[in-house]
């Protein structure tokens, strides 16, 4: 029987010259690992909802990608995670915004879809719902990665300089 899976790991200014062969191989390995997980679900007759959740959990656990561990930092230096899931068979959907302690936000989105009458929960309430539904919790420090922190420092330098011209040159 036919089944299919497609994924993305983010888009943007990805320049060939700046992506080393080693880094490219890491990204492709990460994508392949996620596809393999989804493939295993679908090949055994699992549902599309199970497949997209399982696939995204792999990408969320991979620090290369901007989701879960490896997420970018807000201006305040914290990680706030968003996720959504939708079941085409039922038109049910679930989403979370600004969550900080759920290891796999896509699973929290699915919990909103299946275990609440709501579609979108945000921030403190979503974090609380996650605890109440027994999803795996982590210290927010879990999401920290040095490259993302360095990106925030570069962002701060650029944007603070724009606001405060006195310190434009250090």
């Amino acid at each position: 029987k036919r089944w299919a899976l497609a994924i993305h790991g983010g888009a943007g200014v990805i320049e060939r010259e700046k992506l080393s062969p080693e880094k490219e191989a890491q990204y492709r390995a990460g994508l392949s690992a996620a596809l393999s997980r989804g493939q295993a679900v679908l090949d055994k007759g699992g549902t599309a909802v199970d497949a997209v959740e399982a696939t995204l959990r792999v990408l969320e656990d991979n620090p290369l990608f901007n989701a879960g561990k490896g997420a970018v930092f807000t201006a305040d230096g914290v990680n706030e995670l968003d996720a959504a899931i939708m079941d085409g068979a039922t038109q049910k959907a679930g989403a979370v915004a600004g969550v900080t302690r759920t290891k796999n936000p896509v699973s929290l989105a699915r919990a909103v879809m299946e275990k609440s009458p709501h579609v979108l929960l945000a921030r403190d309430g979503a974090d609380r719902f996650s605890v109440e539904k027994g999803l795996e919790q982590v210290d927010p420090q879990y999401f920290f990665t040095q490259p993302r922190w360095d990106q925030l420092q570069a962002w701060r330098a650029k944007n603070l300089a724009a606001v405060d011209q006195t310190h434009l040159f250090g």
Partner: protein
Amino acid sequence: TVGAAALDQDGHLAAATSTGGTTGKRWGRVGDSPIIGAGTYAKDGACAVSATGTGEYFIRESAARQVCDRVLWKGQTIAEAAQDTIMAVGAIGGDGGLIAMDAAGEVAFGLNDLGMYRGTVSAETPIRTAIF
């Protein structure tokens, strides 16, 4: 941002998206990823979509839902719908990409930026990945 679209053996579609947002986001900013119809959408018989990019523009264009509407109402192929939607996002200043899948499991990518990490696998085809 990461996302997935899938067709299962019973012919059902699903989509999901997960993200940390953008570096330096403030004021409780929320992009398109958790907005059903903007960054994520699925409807059996039509399509499943996950998007990534400058979220505000994907919200304004109802990008994910737009792909499905183009398939259902305009009779476009999934490739045409994905491409025209990403062009519509670009026309108002947005950039990024999306993955889309139709009711038969046909996959399309729409992109108006330099690259998007992406991949596919199906019952008939092995795992394939691409970046540029």
